[in-house]
């Protein structure tokens, strides 16, 4: 048992991110959990995450699988009686989790998100290349199960081998912006 002398650190870290300030005003009513389609699949319920964060359990919160099951359906945000932007708080926790290298290994969602973001940052997301890379990277032996779906989509012209590209100037501009965004470090 450790005697505590006050630990505001983690709450402030979360609170500094856009949407994260709600962590201070939550009244633990559980409306978010009650409204969440995936609450049963999460290791910790949404409101529990806030309670744990307030208790300074940074490790446990950032390494939990809870936020990775968030669908961003915004039902919690709409119903929260304190106006906590919970979906954005979940995104903030995901971001901190990746930044601190505490990602829970038992779900593929973080990998998927990282890959997704990689393609977005190039200016256009090509569904075919993104899906191919994801399945080969994470599930190479079982990705053959996706072949029927992929075949159907190709047949119906739902995915193309050719992907849209920005102009040269546009690509350069995008890269300059994103490079600059890396230096001030974070959205706090």
């Amino acid at each position: 048992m450790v005697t505590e002398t006050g630990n505001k650190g983690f709450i402030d870290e979360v609170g500094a991110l856009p949407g994260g300030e709600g962590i201070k005003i939550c009244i633990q009513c559980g409306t978010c959990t009650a409204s969440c389609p995936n609450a049963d699949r999460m290791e910790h319920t949404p409101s529990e995450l806030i309670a744990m964060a307030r208790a300074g359990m940074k490790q446990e919160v950032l390494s939990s699988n809870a936020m990775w099951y968030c669908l961003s359906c915004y039902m919690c945000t709409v119903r929260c009686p304190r106006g906590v932007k919970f979906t954005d708080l979940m995104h903030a926790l995901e971001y901190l989790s990746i930044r601190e290298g505490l990602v829970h290994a038992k779900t593929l969602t973080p990998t998927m998100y990282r890959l997704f973001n990689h393609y977005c940052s190039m200016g256009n997301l090509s569904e075919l290349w993104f899906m191919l890379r994801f399945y080969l990277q994470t599930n190479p032996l079982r990705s053959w199960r996706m072949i029927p779906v992929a075949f159907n989509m190709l047949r119906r012209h739902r995915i193309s081998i050719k992907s849209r590209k920005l102009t040269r100037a546009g690509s350069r501009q995008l890269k300059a912006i994103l490079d600059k965004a890396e230096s001030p470090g974070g959205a706090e």
Partner: protein
Amino acid sequence: MKYYTYFPGCSCSSEGGARAYGGSMRAIAKVLGLELKELDDWSCCGSTPSGSVDELGAFCLAARDLALAEKTGLDMVTPCSACYVIFNRTNSYLKQYPRLKAKVDEALAAGDLKYDGLIKVRHALDIITTDIGYDAIRAKVTKPLAGLKVAPYYGCQVVRPGFGFDHPENPQSLDKLIASLGGEPTRFPLKTHCCGGSLIISEEALALDLTRKLLESATSNGAECLVTVCPLCQTNLDAYQNRVNQKFKTSYKLPVLFFTQLMGIAFGIGEKELGIKNSIVSAEKVLLKYR
């Protein structure tokens, strides 16, 4: 004539998986007098996952498009629900969080851009039902849907977190749109419930469960077809319908169309232009009535 800047988003562009949505959108825009000028050299908005990986970078991705759009001076319209939420969120956060705005401004400047927050971004369903209106739509119908039972599926993001377009739990705009086309919007209690979104890729079993609930609710209330306003919802409900059947031993054969495709059918536009054949689950039975 109504003028807007058009942002298709990666999925609705001509190379994307929901190109039928983009194609049918342009087709009905012509009929309704909507002049859609595609944003020049637009880049991906970042969608939902980006904010979880690189929070500031994600805001900058969206801000670049907003800055480019601001130059045209017109409001921007997008058919994609995710793009709609991302742009509106970026707009409101830049106003609400001055520190964030400072960093985004700095990044934009590195690309010789600036954004003053003057652009409003609206969803296609919004401009069609609000700016055009149901009476004008009714007037353009040449092949009324003759009571076709259509389940109106909004998905979660077009009405939430609530940028003022429609009611977050009980929206009516799509229902009324179906009615104005001559169809019958069926009772669909789960019409704003999530389809599983991008988790269909990383947590397929979980997402399939959610998709199944939607298909069950729609079909058990008598829907002959389902319309959606989001490219990802359409993919989950359509391209993965077979997977749902495999996993749960069900036999759903519910055609899933984009609302713009349904409008196109009612306006008498050709099926090729509307991309009807792009759907995995065949819409043949439904269309037989209207040929």
